[in-house]
């Protein structure tokens, strides 16, 4: 029993068991959350949930249609800000930034990425909400858009860097200008990856709550245009979950289920696009 061989074998078994159990734990958390959401919120999920406004306090039923539309509008605004700046910034970093400027920009975006979302919310509150004098979809969209920028920059940069240098040289050797080579050869080669990165950035900010609390604020009704407070899924979940009514809790669970499903679908779509690109590049 005490021979080195037995001890080695025992260590092996123990380590395998520990690491395996931890892996199982990590993986099962997602399924646990999904299952729990289904169990708690599944039956509150009906057509009304997607088409009706929240019911007034005291009445049951109603839906989250305004929050779903609000989230969609916020994400559109966030994309309008985050995608162009993030994408072009990433192109600059990968293709045009020299060593020192690129280092500075890269470091700055990493720091920006680390800014807690609540701080981003206060920032948007001060810049947009206080200036305009009221909460609005616009303010929420800006807060989310700024959060998207660093993620989009870094993923764009990484996928561009993964494009083999011989492609750049090949285009330049044919008499293409640097811009032309980047726009017609390098970016198309990296595009599926870049789209994936941007989808993931979008999925990430779709679930952000803190920056919306004092920018988009929330709303029990429709929010026409971009200039009024709006409901959104994460923020409605927050408010419904802390309310003292049992049926609100169920609706919060249902909204959580919808949000998580959305994020999962985007994630899976992103991976799918990326796999296709890898296949195409390999030929």
């Amino acid at each position: 029993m005490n021979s080195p061989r037995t001890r080695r074998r025992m260590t092996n078994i123990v380590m395998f068991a520990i690491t395996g159990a931890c892996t199982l734990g990590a993986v099962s958390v997602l399924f646990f959350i999904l299952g729990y959401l289904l169990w708690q919120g599944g039956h509150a999920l009906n057509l009304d949930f997607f088409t009706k406004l929240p019911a007034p306090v005291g009445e049951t039923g109603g839906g989250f249609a305004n929050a779903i539309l609000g989230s969609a509008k916020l994400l559109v605004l966030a994309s309008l800000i985050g995608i162009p700046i993030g994408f072009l910034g990433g192109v600059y970093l990968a293709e045009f930034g020299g060593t020192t400027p690129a280092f500075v920009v890269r470091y700055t975006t990493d720091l920006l990425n680390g800014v807690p979302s609540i701080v981003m919310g206060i920032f948007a509150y001060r810049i947009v909400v206080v200036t305009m004098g009221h909460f609005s979809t616009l303010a929420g969209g800006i807060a989310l858009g700024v959060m998207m920028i660093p993620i989009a920059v870094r993923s764009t940069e990484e996928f561009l860097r993964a494009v083999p240098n011989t492609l750049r040289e090949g285009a330049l050797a044919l008499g293409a200008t640097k811009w032309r080579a980047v726009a017609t050869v390098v970016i198309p080669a990296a595009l599926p990856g870049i789209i994936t990165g941007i989808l993931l950035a979008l999925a990430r900010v779709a679930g952000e709550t803190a920056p919306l609390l004092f920018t988009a604020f929330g709303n029990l009704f429709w929010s026409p245009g971009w200039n009024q407070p709006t409901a959104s899924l994460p923020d409605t979940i927050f408010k419904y979950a802390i309310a003292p009514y049992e049926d609100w809790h169920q609706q919060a669970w249902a909204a959580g289920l919808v949000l998580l499903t959305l994020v999962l679908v985007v994630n899976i779509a992103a991976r799918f696009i990326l796999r296709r690109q890898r296949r195409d590049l390999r030929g």
Partner: protein
Amino acid sequence: MKINVGRVNFYYGKQQALYDVSTRIRQQAVTALIGPSGCGKSTFLRSLNRMNDLIPGARLEGKVELDGEDIYSDEMDVIHLRRRVGMIFQRSNPFPMSVYDNVAYGVRVNKLARKRLEVDEIVEKTLRAAALWEEVKDRLHRSAMSLSGGQQQRLCIARALAVEPEVLLMDEPASALDPISTAKIEELIYNLKQSYTIVVVTHNMQQAARISDETGFFLNGRLVEFNETKRIFTAPAVRETEDYITGRFG
């Protein structure tokens, strides 16, 4: 003489890669550059179309003339230079687009033809010149990535020919290919020299002997010997050349 190189010294930052290289490249002939790895032959090749400009800290002293015009002078339009001096790389690098679009790329970038029919014509002509037309004519609009390695390399040659260059630089164009594809590339090079000036870097000495008219031997950043291929391989003047081609080192 198509290209005239006078006392070129080349530096990557502080590290010198070429020492006092002077030579002349003959028109409508194949010039082979041989030598052990790291001897500077690729650096030399890439300095002929200023591809080294892309490397931060790279610097060249001396003179490189194309048809008597200094390509490193301030008046030189590098974009135009690279059109005149095309390049084939060691690893085939088709763009991730269709076979047709690959060949048409340089044509479009340089606005050599606008009408669809003209582009069609150039694509067919250059694919024929690269001995690839028969193999790809039924899948011109399929991804270039679906071609075999040898076909991809010939596609890259076709793509380079499409912009009507005067000089073709080839950096070990067949080193990643199987013997049959290599033979096709060599045959192609042999045929192309009637219309183009070709400079080939190669590790394969039999290949240099087979396809080239003139050969330069590089060692430690110096052009040790430059002469007709026949003479280099039968009666080299310098001891190091003889040692290298007989396989005593490198």
